[in-house]
Structures are given as C-alpha cells and as structure tokens.
C-alpha cells in the first residue's frame, strides 16, 4: 500500500475490526446467513420453554453449546416463526441472579450458600420431623407447568408414593384447571380435540376471552394463513389486538359470557340452526339443555351482555351449521368464578351444531404454559398418571401394579387444590411448603394471602432458576434449578403434541435439573427404589408410556426421544398398534439415509373425535350446564371500576422472572405498571396518559401509570398481569368445579397520585 492509499484509508476507513464484527456468513444447515461471530458448527431443534403453542427453535451450536437460535422452519407448529420470547430464549439463562448453590436462611435471617449435601439433609430432616409431628397432611408442594413431564411425573411419584405426601398442586391450577375439568365432564377425558391446522381450515373462528395476537402470536400466524376468508369473531370486554384484527368484536360486559353463550344456544335451537342428527348420535343431555336455555331470550341476554339482541342474532347466524365453525378460548374463560360451565357452554355450541371432529371446527382450549398439558396427564396431583382418577379403585390398582407398590397406600381422593392448601397453611394445618418453578408471591390471586401463608410456615422451600424471585426471597431454603435449555425432557402443547427439551447450555454453578434434584431427594429420603427404573428423563418417559397404555392419551407408539425429534413432535394418542404398520418407528440411526430419516412416519396433524366417539363409557359427549352465578365482587359506589387483568405484550411471560432478564425484551414493554382507562373516566378523574394513579381494592393498592384508551369500556380498567402489584388487588373467587381463581374481575377505585 503506498502512502497515498494509506492516507486515504486513515481518513476514510471502509473496513476493519468493527466492520468485521458485523459480517454475515452462510450459516449452513438451511439457516441462510448468520453472524460470522456466531456461526454454528451444528444445529439441533427443541421446543421453546414458555407457552403452550410449543414452537420449535433451532439451536445454533458451537462445540456443543448454544450460541444463537432461529425458529425451526421444519416444525409443523411454528413453520419457522417465533415470538420475541422465543427469539430471546437463551438470554435469561445467562442472567446474573441465577441460583448457583443451595441457599439456607441462617439464624440471623440471612440466606447463606450451603452445599447440596447439607441442603438435602435439611430438606429431608426438617420435612420428616414435621411429618412425624403433624402427619403427612402437614407438608404440601406447589409445582408448575414450566418443567418437562418427566420431572412432574417423578415429582408426583416421589412426593405421593415415596415421601407419603397427600397434598400437591401446580400453577396449572391458575391457568388450565377449568379446561381440564370442562373437557373431562363433557368428553369423558381431558382431551383438547384440535390441531393447529384447524385455524387454517375454518370458515368462522370465534375467540372467547382469548387474545392470541399477543398471548399466542404464532397461533395467530396460523389464523393469518387461513385462505378461506374467514369471519373472525372476538368475544372480549376489551378491544384487544385480536379484536382489532378480527372481522367482528363483541364487547360484552365482563363476566356475562355464560348468559351470552346460553342465549346463543337458545337462538340456535329456536331457529332450528342445529345438527339434530349429530346430537342424537353422539351426545346425551340435550333435551335438558334445550329446556334450560329456553328462558334465555335474546332481549334479556342482549341487555345483560350489553350487546343488544340484534348483535346476538347476527352472532348466532354466523355460527350455525353449514360452515366450518371453530371456537377457541383461553384465560378470559378459564380464569372465572364459573369458568367450567362457560367452557362447557362453548363445547355445547360446537356439539349442537355438529362442529367438532371435522376440519376447521372444534371447541378448543388454547393452553397457557408450555407443559400444562403434561401436567394434566402425568403430574399425579389432581389425578393419577395417565389421566386416571384417585377415587377409581381400578385406576389405583393399575398404578400400583405398574409401580409395584401397594394399592392400599394410594389416597382415594385427590389432594387439596392450590387455594385450599394455602388456606390450610394459614389455619396452621400445613407447616411446610415446597414451591417448584413458580412464583406465587407475585402470581397468586389476592397475593397478600400467599404472603401471609408464607409467613406462617415452618419451612418454605423454593426450587427455582433464580434466587431472587418474589417467592424465593421469602424462602428458608432455595434449591438451584437448571432451566430450559439446560436439561432434557418432553412437553405437551395445546394441540396434544409431545415435543422435546434438550440440553444445549451448561447450567451455572451447582444448579441441577429438577429431575436430578428429585432423584437426590429420593435418595436422601430413602425411597430411591421407587424411581430405580427412572435413572434418566428418557427412562422416566418410558415409564410414562406404560402409564398411558390403553388410556385415551396412549403414547406407546412413540419409541423414544429421537423418534419425537425425527417426527417433528408427535400428537397423542399414538398407540403402539397404530405404529405396527409404520415403517420407521425404530430408534434414530445416524447411518440411515437422510431421505429416510426426513420422512415422517406419523400423520403430522391429527384431530380427535373424527369418528364421533367420546370417552364417556357410552361413547357420547354430555351437555353440561348450570345457571350463571352472580359476579363475586360487583362494583359499588365506593369501588366503581371493574378491574380486568391479562397479558400486555408478547415480550413478557407470567411474572417476568425470565423475560425481565433480556434487555431487548425489556425494551418491548412498559417499564412502569400500567392501568388502561377509558377517556370518559379519565377526564372525570382528571387523568392524562402517563399520570400516576393509585388503584385500590378492598385488599390492597397498586401504583400504576394511566394509559388512556378507548380499548376498555367506561367503568372498566385493565392492568397487565406481569407487574407484581396487580395481584395485590385481585379478588379470591374460585370456580367451584376447577378451583381455578377468577383473575379477570374485581372492584377497584382509582385515585390520582401526586408523585412523578
């Protein structure tokens, strides 16, 4: 380079170190270009660890360790797409508040690191002492829908059959219990019937209390792929993102959904818009239902819901037989004081119009957590593994036989539900609580109750990835867990698809997979024999298969993890009999030709009830119904606003313990708690957007910034659930059948807050 060039380069440098850092290079493996700095030498796919959509993420590996990820283009769920949480899934693993050793609260009240041996001895010694003194009902656990099924499964076995506990529940009580019970009572088994393909194949999609644009963006992707120019109906008091993207929005009064659904049923019956042949062949209880809904005349329901009878008629006309109508619901229905009956009222609409078991139809519950569905089948909390029931002696015997234990030792009724466990903590009957991968100090309805309970405990053990969650801060003992990406196991998504978690990142410090923590507890407790055939998650999976045999959720046709991987996830059921004829059900063999291993052996997207046979002994579905109950905490002059809660952005997950660790995700949502309020109410209270407000309920208060918006109706306010303040306000009402808390309605008042 001559002097002139050198000078030119010095004055105007076109390349160099900084430019090089940003260079893209062909990523291989079908990835397209990736940053050269992060070029993978291998890839593998695994299910995202947040929600129940169950997207597959392609992990970019360098020397076996994850360096980056992109959504998996081959997976039938997400087709190469992901929401921000998925894109940022690796970041929360690197947070500096990860729990890296067990922590024990000392005499000085401070948490101090201890080794695993000490922690496990403290755990077993103290719990055994409490049980010795107060009996097996004095210890309970609260688990999660966020860990793989194998971990839930051995936790269920260990706690109930090894440690002899009676009570254990999970945070799935807060999200899915209602659907679980609704399906079980209506269909005879907890069986969401759909496949995501149904989003694409509907003529009419009805979203009840669901906001997939924000809560399940990748499901919304599938809706957008629908080429049938569908009518999209949204039933929601708030004009959500989904309501705006829909063709019709029904902004009903909060908690008037059950009368609305009965009113619709009445119109359908009156107008003859029903599929009588289907009703006769495949259902029971229709006559009673017909009589019951006859009193729900459109005028009355139109008034009650605030929609008017005309819109009701229009709604009924859109969902009558003749078109493919699918109903979808989420937390607006589930988190209600009468969620089970509401979900069943939706199921009834699908049954009476024959819109089930066919493409683009169904009464479909969109699940919340990544493995809520695994919890529903295998957690051994509300039911015995394989969707069995505690009160059923035959079921108890089957379980005992598989495990080689005494059936007499199995409790004959389910343990207490979440709210009942906390009630008993407060009343002093339960002395120790073991919380696994959930954060009730933030998420529990009327949070103060959990905090009060925590203060009464002799021992609170929190097993979590982070040492500083709201709940871990209250703990006496913290056990450090490995997180998603640091361990193996299977999860089941909303459409019953079983997918894999893989180990692609080293856990920090001494954090261990929950699977190994449970195994160690079994060892220290002295009941490791119970789990002796389950040394690894995959061996536990083989045991889960045995529990599924002959049940509606039969997965005996799944050979092993590699088969799940190869098939792009596998929906249950897949009994061994179905696979007998399939050519490639053997385990993975890397020497097989690529073409062979790329060919799926199982039909990729399947729905249930195509034959019209349900799981009740008579093979029929049941119409379930009951009169609507009054709103538990109606608004009053003193507390004139109905507080609705829900998701705010697709960049936040639950209590934000993980998503809050990503700087990029933090940019995508408001740093301050927010309260949405209608302009009329705002002007009456002299509030402008951005003003600080005190939101007060009878139970507590929360400070939030006003977001003035006509997306909420006058008299209603909305707050995102991701801020810890919100559940200081919520009212502890529960569905009587599912014991699911009603997060979506309580009475509050607003006061302007002077501060800035």
């Amino acid at each position: 380079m001559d002097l002139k060039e050198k000078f030119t380069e010095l004055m105007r440098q076109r390349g160099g170190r900084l430019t090089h850092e940003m260079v893209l290079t062909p990523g291989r493996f079908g990835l397209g270009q990736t940053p050269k700095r992060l070029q993978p030498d291998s890839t593998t796919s695994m299910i995202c660890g947040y929600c129940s959509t169950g997207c597959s993420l392609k992990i970019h590996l360098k020397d076996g360790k994850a360096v980056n990820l992109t959504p998996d283009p081959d997976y039938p769920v997400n087709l190469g797409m992901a929401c921000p949480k998925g894109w940022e899934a690796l970041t929360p693993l690197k947070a500096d508040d990860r729990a890296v050793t067990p922590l024990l609260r000392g005499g000085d009240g401070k948490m101090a690191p201890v080794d695993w041996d000490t922690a496990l001895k403290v755990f077993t010694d103290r719990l055994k002492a409490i049980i010795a003194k107060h009996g097996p009902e004095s210890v309970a656990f609260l688990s999660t829908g966020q860990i793989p099924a194998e971990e839930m499964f051995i936790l269920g076995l260990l706690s109930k059959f090894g440690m002899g506990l009676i009570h254990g529940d999970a945070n799935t009580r807060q999200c899915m219990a209602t659907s679980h019970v609704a399906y079980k009572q209506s269909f005879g088994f907890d069986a969401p019937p759909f496949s995501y393909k149904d989003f694409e194949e509907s003529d009419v999609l009805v979203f009840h209390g669901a906001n997939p644009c924000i809560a399940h963006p990748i499901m919304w992707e599938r809706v957008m792929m629908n080429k049938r120019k569908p009518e999209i109906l949204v039933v929601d008091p708030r004009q959500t993102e989904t309501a705006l993207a829909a063709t019709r929005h029904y902004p009903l009064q909060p908690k008037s959904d059950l009368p609305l659904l009965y009113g619709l049923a009445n119109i359908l019956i009156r107008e003859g818009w029903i599929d009588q042949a289907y009703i006769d062949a495949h259902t029971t209880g229709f006559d009673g239902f017909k009589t019951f809904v006859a009193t729900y005349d459109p005028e009355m329901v139109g008034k009650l819901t605030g929609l008017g009878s005309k819109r009701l008629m229009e709604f009924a006309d859109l969902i009558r037989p003749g078109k493919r109508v699918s109903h979808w619901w989420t937390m607006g229905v589930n988190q209600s004081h009468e969620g089970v009956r509401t979900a069943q009222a939706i199921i009834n609409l699908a049954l009476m119009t024959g819109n089930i078991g066919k493409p683009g139809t169904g009464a479909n519950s969109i699940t919340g957590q990544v493995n809520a569905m695994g919890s529903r089948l295998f957690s051994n909390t509300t039911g015995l593994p394989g969707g069995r029931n505690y009160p059923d002696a035959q079921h108890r015997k089957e379980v005992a036989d598989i495990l080689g234990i005494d059936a007499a030792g199995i409790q004959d009724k389910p343990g207490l539900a979440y709210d009942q466990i906390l009630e008993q903590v407060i009343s002093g009957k339960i002395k120790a609580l073991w919380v696994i991968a959930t954060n009730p100090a933030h998420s529990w309805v009327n949070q103060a109750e959990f905090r009060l309970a925590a203060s009464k405990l002799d021992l609170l053990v929190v097993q979590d990835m982070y040492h500083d969650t709201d709940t871990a801060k209250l703990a006496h003992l913290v056990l450090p867990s490995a997180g998603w990406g640091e361990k193996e196991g299977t999860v089941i998504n909303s459409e019953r698809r079983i997918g894999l978690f893989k180990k692609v990142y080293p856990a920090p410090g001494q954090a261990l997979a929950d699977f190994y923590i449970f195994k160690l507890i079994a060892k220290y407790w002295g009941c490791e024999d119970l789990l002796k055939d389950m040394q690894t998650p995959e061996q536990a999976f083989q045991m889960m298969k045995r529990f599924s045999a002959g049940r509606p959720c039969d997965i005996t046709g799944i050979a092993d993890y590699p088969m799940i991987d190869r098939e792009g996830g596998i929906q249950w059921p897949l009994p061994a009999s179905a696979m007998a004829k399939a050519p490639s059900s053997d385990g993975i063999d890397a020497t097989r030709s690529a073409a062979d291993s790329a060919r799926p052996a199982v039909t990729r997207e399947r729905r249930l009830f195509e034959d019209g046979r349900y799981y009740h002994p008579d093979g029929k579905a049941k119409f379930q119904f009951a009169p609507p109950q009054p709103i538990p905490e109606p608004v009053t002059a003193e507390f004139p606003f109905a507080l609705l809660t829900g998701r705010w952005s697709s960049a936040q997950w639950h209590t934000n313990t993980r998503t809050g660790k990503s700087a990029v995700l933090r940019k995508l949502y408001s740093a301050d708690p927010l309260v949405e309020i209608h302009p009329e109410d705002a002007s009456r209270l002299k509030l402008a957007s951005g003003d600080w407000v005190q939101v007060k309920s009878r139970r507590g208060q929360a400070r939030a910034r006003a977001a003035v918006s006509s997306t909420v109706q006058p008299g209603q306010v909305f707050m995102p659930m991701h801020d810890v303040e919100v559940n200081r306000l919520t009212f502890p009402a529960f569905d009587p059948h599912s014991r699911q808390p009603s997060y979506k309605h309580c009475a509050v008042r607003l006061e302007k807050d002077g501060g800035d």
Partner: protein
Amino acid sequence: MKIKLKPKAPSLATFLGEGPALIGAYLEEQQTLTAVDRFSGMHDLMQDGFPGKPKLESHYRDLLPLDKPKPGQQYAFEVDLDRCTGCKACVTACHNLNGLDEDETWRSVGLIHNVIGKPLQQTVTTACQHCLEPACSHGCPVKAYEKDPVTGIVKHLDDQCIGCEYCILKCPYDVPQYHKGKGIVRKCDMCVGRLEVGEAPACVQACPTKAIKITLVEVGEVRRNHANYAAIPGAPDSSYTLPTTRYKTARRFPAGMEAADAYKVKKEKPHYPLVVMLTLSQLAAGFILATEAGSLAGLLPLHPLFQIIARSLGAFLMTVAIVVSITHLGRPLYAFRAVIGFRRSWLSREIVAFGLLQALAAAAATVSLMGALPAGFLARLSLPPDLMGHLIDAASSPASRLVLCLAAVLGVHCSAMVYRDTPRALWASRITSAKFLLTAALTGAAAMLTLVTAWVLAHVGSAGAFKDLALYLTAALPVALIAKLGCEARVHRHLDDQDPTPLKKAALLLRGELRLANVIRFNLGLLGGFLMPILWLNHGFAGTGADLAFALACFIPLLLGELAERYLFFTACVPPRMPGA
C-alpha cells in the same frame, strides 16, 4: 445419556458416602451437553437436500422484489399495517440474526391509537427509512455514511465512525443507535448482505404474518409524494429526509389518531461534555472578541503584559473547550477525520472553525508573549530580528484583531448551525444563534470585566482610565441578560399549544421534570447578569478589591447560569420520533 453411577461410583461412594457421590455424579452429568451427540447429527443430515439453501426461502420469496433496482429505483421497506398485530418478533429477529449486542435494537415497534371516538389502535414497526436525503449522512463530519447508488441503502461505515453521535441528533426517526462499548453508532443496513444473495432481511424473514416486505420504489415518485412515505399519524415531517418506507392499510385513520406516547414527556440525554464544551467555547470566543475588539477600540490596556494575559487566557479557554469536546467522542483518536465532511456537515465546519480560532488565538498569544521577552532571549533563538518585529506588529495589527474577531464569531455561528441544522424544533431556529452569541457576549464581557478589575487592582492609580469601559460593560450585562432570558422564555408560549408538539413538550418539561434546573438557571442569570451589575453600578467603580468581588459575583453566577441553560438546551429538546409504545 448415561449416569455414571453404578460402574464408577462404588469407590467414590464408599469414600464420600452414597448421597454426596450421587450429587457429584449429577453435577458432572449436568455439565455434559448431550444434544449434539444424540440429535444434531440427524438434524444436520436432514439438511443434505438443501446445500446452503435457506429453508425459509419459500416463506419470504414473495416478500422480495423479483429484480434488482433499475436506475431511478431503490430498495425500500413496505409495511402492511393490516397484517401487523404487534408481536414484535421483527425486533428480536433483527437483534439475533444480525448478532447485535445485548441491549441493541435496530428496529422498534410503536403504537398509534384513537383515544376519543371509535376505538382503534395500530402497532407500527420502524427501522431505517433509507431516505433519499439521509440527514444522518448529511450531518456526519467524517462521511461514515454512504447511500448506495444502486440499492439506495444507507450504509454506515463502522470503522470510519468517530462516535460523535451527531447523526442521532440529525435523524428524525431515531435510527442510529450509539454503542457505548464500541464508541460508535450502528444502524440497519436492510441486511444488504442477505439481499445480495437473494435472502430476505431478518425482519422480513421473521414476521409471522408477512407484514414487512422489500419493494422497489421509484425515486422520482418518492420525491414527488414523499408525504405518502413514513406516513403515520404523529410521524416526523417527511420533507426533511424523504423517507422511503411505505405503510399500507385499508383502514382510514380517524383524525384523532395519534402516537400512544404523544403525551409522554421525558427529559432527553444531557450530553454533559457538549454542555461544557458549548459554554466554554462561547466564553472563549466572547473573551477573545472582547480582548481584540476592546483593544482595537482602545478601551483595554495595551500594556504588553495585559495583552499577553488576555490572549493567553482566550487561547487557553478555547483549548480546554476543544479538549472537552473530544472527550465526548466515542473514538477520540480518530477526531482528525472530522475535517473531511466540511462540504456538507455543520459539525465538521464547527470543528474546523474552532480549530482555526484556537490556532489563531494561540499564535497571537505566543507572538505577544515573544514580543515581551528580553531581546537577548529572542536572539538566542536565532530568528531574524526583522521577522520577529514584523510578526509582533502583525499580531497586534487591527487586521489581525479583526480576523480573530471574525474567527470567534464564525466559530459560534458554526456551533449554532450544528443545532439549527437538525429537525428538532427547539434548536432549529435563529433563536439558537441568538442564544449562543448572547452566551458569548455575557460570559465574555463578565470575564473581561473580571480581568480588567484585577488588572486595575494590580496597577493602583489607573482606575480612572477604565472606568468608562467598566461602566459600559456592566451596564451592558443586564441588557444582554434580559435578551438572553427572553430568548429562552419564548418556548413557554407553546405551553398552550393544542397538539403535543416538541415545543409544547419542552415547555412542559421546563415546568415539570426540569423545573428545578430551570429555576436555578434563571436565578443564577438574574444574580450575575442583573442584580450584581446594578449593585455594582450603584456602588461605583473605584478600582478597589470590592470591584473585583463585584466582577466575580457577576461572572461566576453568569457562567454557572449559562451551563445550566445549556443543560436545559439538551434535556428539554424533544426530538421528532416515530410513535413509541
């Protein structure tokens, strides 16, 4: 996966006990990454049929133009608002696929809504607009931006960047992002490397609803109808840069549609080095101006020592200002590159002008100093005695003094133009020039008063000669101050504006979050520029220590007041932006 317990553990277990041995085995197992061994072989094999071909190609094929841009065309983003539901995957995909740093994002998603009337809200995704008249590029003092003549993509040359952040002040769309660790800005390049090989930009690839695509736009069309581009309620005026992103929608936005953050007022970054640099450079320029003009008018002592002190002080202040300004750069070592943007960038011109002023002032000070040295000393330097004489004469000649005055005014003018040439309403007016010149006048005059009173104090008996000067300057201070405060107070008129304009927000900030700083600023100004001069005038100029005290009591509050004013100049300046959350 195998748990190495049974075969290996017995000896370990007998040694440690079974529990700890198991803990050890699990901890070891936990650190073993298994996915590659068990699964990746298969995944990689499955790619055999697609050597190098991106699997998402079929997803984005129809989101890219079929042809390369022809002359008169360029690439542009097109956003179908009706397909965007606000999932924000585009932001994270851009982040991951471009390997950005932890909190770095090149795309953002905002919200517009209709508050009164029919409820409506719409998310809006924005990245670089790849403008026809890229303000970032026009402002860059080192030509670190270039607009590709074929694709129209506005590219940033990372290694050329000196980290002055001026492009951030220039861009109305908040596109360039400063990277603290690297000391440079970076920005969206429309994934030009991907486009070159037929792949879609990260955001286009990642949008689940295919709301973002790349199109070819006719440059002439954009020029004619620029208002149709980046046309979102609340978006910045398109005439400034001629943006090319097209937002499509079948909806009609009602008149009340506005950015969800339209009423959000938050103070902006203070840029402390710039606060100090601007105030000091104006003090220096004002002082140089006072020195040269005062000497020219015969109002100042022509005593060589006084001239040396005054000129050295001016040069020194200017040097400090320049040093401070360099500390503001992310990569100060490359500051010298700033000369190459002279033709277009006011920042480059400012740097050159102040460089010139500093050089001239330093030269003048040096020559004055040499003139005062003993003859023998100069002789030892073996300079031709004639030359020295000429130089000394030249340095104190009216022409030199005029040149210095002009250079000082030019420097301050360039400074003001740096800010006037941005799309920020608080800055983009003649008021900025007035403010800067008045700062120079106020601080320069007060500093000169201080020097003169000190000089008089040191040379007892000469007070009478400078009484007039002191009187003029002291009387001028309140006048200049009122003018200055008047300039600053103008923004408060916008408090009653109907729309949440940047000026209204500035006024709101000055009354709200910045109230304290604003009160301090006005009080300091009134103290040093009004109260003290009046008291001093009342007291009379006697050439005593009291005069020096008065002078300092004017100068120090005035200087601090101007620093506070400059802090407010940055923190109250609300830029135009695309709608935020």
